[in-house]
């Protein structure tokens, strides 16, 4: 790695610090719009717990001035304590570690399929512009994009779990598999079931986990592939209209080489940007899919925290999301340079 590139990466990573400050101050400021009693509602799950709301406000310092609340939180963060996630009754860092593997597993399967399928279909549609395949893929894209995720997920569940007698079930593992995984015989390396199953040499758990992944992955792919395909198509069309493509064809290069090597590569830049956003978006949670398929990941956790004004959880998640976006953007920028060597990262 050249010295320039190394310093570029370090500079980009350092950017995360002001981003985190900005995010945390913004969240703290927004939260102050809520009355202390409203924030105390997080600790009051039923009427009978509401008898001593003043005590709860006092105990958690909800009526303290914003700067005191902020610096109290910050001093704890600097000591490695991100706070307590009330909505899942565990430390924020533990919550993140607990729920991230599920989301990561979903992303691991859904993202590559979405990206590869999107690129393939987009390229096909562009090359066969205004032909049947173009119309078909565009129609599919519109259907996929406009289909409400919630409805699609429920339908898939009804068909492949309800109608086909439990073919592709919700949740992350079946009862037998989860009992085995909980037992001392199974070592948790990553929290990602399919990987851990292979590392433990338990093929049946791998298959079981895969069965549970089919529907959430399919849901994500159907919904997300549309956008990627549309971008790839328009980007490819633009590239195909460029002079160098005509020149390449005039020189006698075969169509496949021109499409893949010349036009395709140039069309990849916007797709790479979008793919980066897609991966970081998936990693930071796909709430509806996670909820319908009972695939509890970080998205499910965050929405639960946000809706109940669980500030430490919201802040913890935001820190995670900010770091994730900075890193993903960095990877995308590095990819730019790979895709198009004319781009210099300085």
């Amino acid at each position: 790695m050249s010295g320039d590139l190394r310093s570029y990466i370090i500079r980009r990573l350092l950017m995360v610090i002001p981003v985190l400050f900005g995010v945390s101050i913004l969240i703290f400021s927004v939260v102050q719009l809520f009355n202390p009693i409203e924030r105390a509602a997080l600790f009051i799950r039923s009427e009978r717990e509401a008898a001593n709301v003043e005590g709860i406000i006092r105990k958690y310092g909800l009526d303290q001035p914003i700067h005191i609340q902020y610096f109290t939180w910050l001093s704890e963060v600097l000591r490695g304590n991100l706070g307590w996630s009330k909505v899942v009754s565990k430390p924020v860092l533990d919550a993140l570690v607990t729920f991230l593997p599920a989301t990561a597993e979903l992303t691991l399967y859904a993202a590559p399929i979405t990206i590869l399928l999107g690129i393939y279909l987009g390229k096909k549609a562009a090359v066969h512009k205004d032909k049947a395949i173009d119309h078909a893929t565009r129609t599919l894209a519109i259907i996929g994009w406009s289909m409400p995720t919630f409805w699609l997920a429920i339908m898939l569940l009804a068909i492949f779990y309800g109608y086909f007698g439990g073919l592709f079930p919700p949740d992350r593992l079946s009862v037998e598999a989860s009992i085995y995984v909980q037992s001392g015989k199974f070592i948790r390396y990553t929290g990602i079931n399919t990987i851990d199953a292979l590392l433990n040499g338990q093929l049946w758990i791998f298959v079981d986990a895969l069965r549970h992944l089919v529907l959430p992955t399919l849901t994500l792919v159907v919904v997300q592939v549309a956008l990627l395909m549309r971008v790839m198509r328009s980007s490819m069309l633009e590239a195909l209209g460029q002079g160098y493509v005509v020149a390449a064809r005039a020189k006698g290069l075969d169509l496949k080489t021109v499409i893949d090597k010349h036009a395709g590569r140039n069309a990849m830049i916007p797709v790479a940007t979008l793919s980066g956003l897609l991966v970081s978006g998936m990693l930071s949670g796909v709430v509806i899919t996670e909820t319908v398929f009972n695939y509890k990941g970080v998205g499910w956790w965050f929405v639960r925290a946000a809706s109940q004004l669980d500030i430490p959880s919201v802040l913890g998640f935001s820190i995670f999301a900010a770091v994730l976006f900075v890193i993903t953007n960095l990877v995308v920028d590095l990819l730019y340079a790979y895709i198009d060597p004319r781009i210099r990262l300085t």
Partner: protein
Amino acid sequence: MSKRRGIGRVTLALAIVLVLVIAGFSYALFSFSQQAPSPTIVQTQTIVTTISQIPTTIVQTVTTPQITTMVQTVVTTPGPQVKNPNTLVIATIGDVESLDPAWAYDTASAEAIFNVYEPLIFFKIDPSLPAEKRGLTGEFEPRLATEWVWDDPRTVRFKIRENVVFHCGDTLTPEDVEYSFERAMVQDRDGGPVWLLLEPLLGVSSTRDDEGNIAVSFDDIDKAVEVDGQWVVFHLAHEFPPTAFLQIIAQSWGSIVSKEWAIEQGDWPGTAETWQQYNNPETPPLQNKMCGTGPFKLESWEPGVQYVLVRNDNYWRPPAKLERVIVKVVDEWTTRKFMLLSGDADMVVVPRQFVPELEGTACEGLTSTCPTGIRFVKDLPSLSVDAFFFTLDISTDSEYIGSGQLDGNGIPPNFFEDPDLRKAFAYAFDYETYIKDAWLGEAIRPCSPIVQGLAFFDPQAKCYTFNLDLAREHFQKAWNGQVWEKGFQLVLLYNTGNVARQTAAEIIKKNVESINPKFKIEVRNVDWPVFLRSMIQRKLPIFFIGWLADYPDPHNFYQPFFHSSGTFAQWQGYSNPQVDELIETAAKSTDPAERQRIYRQLDSIYYEEAISIPIDQPSGRHYERDWVQGWHYNPIYPGTYFYTIWKGY
């Protein structure tokens, strides 16, 4: 270059191959997964059941349990169609908040706790009764105490069972019992359940004053529970209805923990010097770990996801029939429904609005099998009540009272001080339609906070009925006719997602507006935090709220509803010294006849005052796969008691 037409042959072929591959892959996956190792099916199990018979008199001087033992052979022959025959899977919506018995005050947590920990005594289970009536609320059977004796109305002693071993290996001693109750009082978190122990034992509802400063001494706590040989003695701060005290300590907050183990986990060391450090903690040391004596042990808890209990094979009674219980949190109803239909879940929570979706799918009654494999029982009585409450002293800065004056565009803050107005609203509510619409007819109409199922319930208690003529009369009399003449405008709030409260608000709006065109009511929904804040800050002219029994005694209902220091009465700004005195006297009386007389009097005042109007006492439903056996119901249980359950036909 040849011109392409339509989808190329290669693409078409590829598409067909792709479809075939997906289909084949799906089939392979499904078939392969069927070969996964499955748990061993228990064919025959011999169970020794101990049946205890406890005298049922309310005031007991000496209680000598007569223990009879019978050997009952239960042949569990689960056919191949029983999924996970030794594991009970429940798909629920409630999320465990804490596993610490002194901290937990929600039903989901209490369900886990009362299957792992045990109290001294437990609500009697009468196997001769149908499953839905088998759990009794006013009679008890021994658990970690073998017998109990009331020395006098303020002193009760429990003989502690011997040879009981905690899950973590310690042997139960009377010191563990003393420590468990003292530890709970030492902890006493804000908004927690320990006030239930503090009231009878220390005569206070909190260990802290209004400013949050410690208001009791360690001596008070120490002397309340004492060890006397194999016995543990409870000294009550004042006379307290004996059954009510036993009802309190028979629940999750009366669970016995191992002293040695708790101290090892960083909990209160049992000394006077440091007790204040352990008062009102942010998180309790026993938050996510358990060491009880119960029929199940905690295997794992993933907050928000599930908890798993495994059978305690060293249980002091015969071990449970189930090997394992998995309680999963599944937020989405459709997912829970398919889990039940496929047999992946044995029991699921079915919210009222989704009951029609299972019509025709589930068979009624728990005694037989069902072609669909799913059965249910309905009309399970609850010990809860919903009501609407009038705020007598509405905050002047409330955004829900329009102009804040009686000018037709709002209401004055003391609008509901006039009893005629409260009665007018009570008569304008269509109770029957509400129960039919909001509860699908599965609720009863209570007349007072003493709901059906509680002691001293009066089936003859006076009730407001839906009568628009009487409503009109009271509206015409209210505020010397000014309300009728000028009209009013107010906002009714309900918390988003609460269908019953929304229905109630809309019924009030429709009926009240139909009486006089000058009456205007706007129904608005807000999130729970805003609803709660508005209610506590007395901003709501009328609020809807419910109450679930902590223990099945009328005091637990009349106190929040009617006493000036009660939760709801405070939010309403209601105070009546005569009522306060009656409630306090009834709470301390050990004479059932006197209590009955006082509660009848309170019912009468409650009706006349019309300070709040009870609108429903819902009854519940229970859904299960027909291979589940042994489930029983008790309205005071926080959930399912797993010990009596097994799977098979």
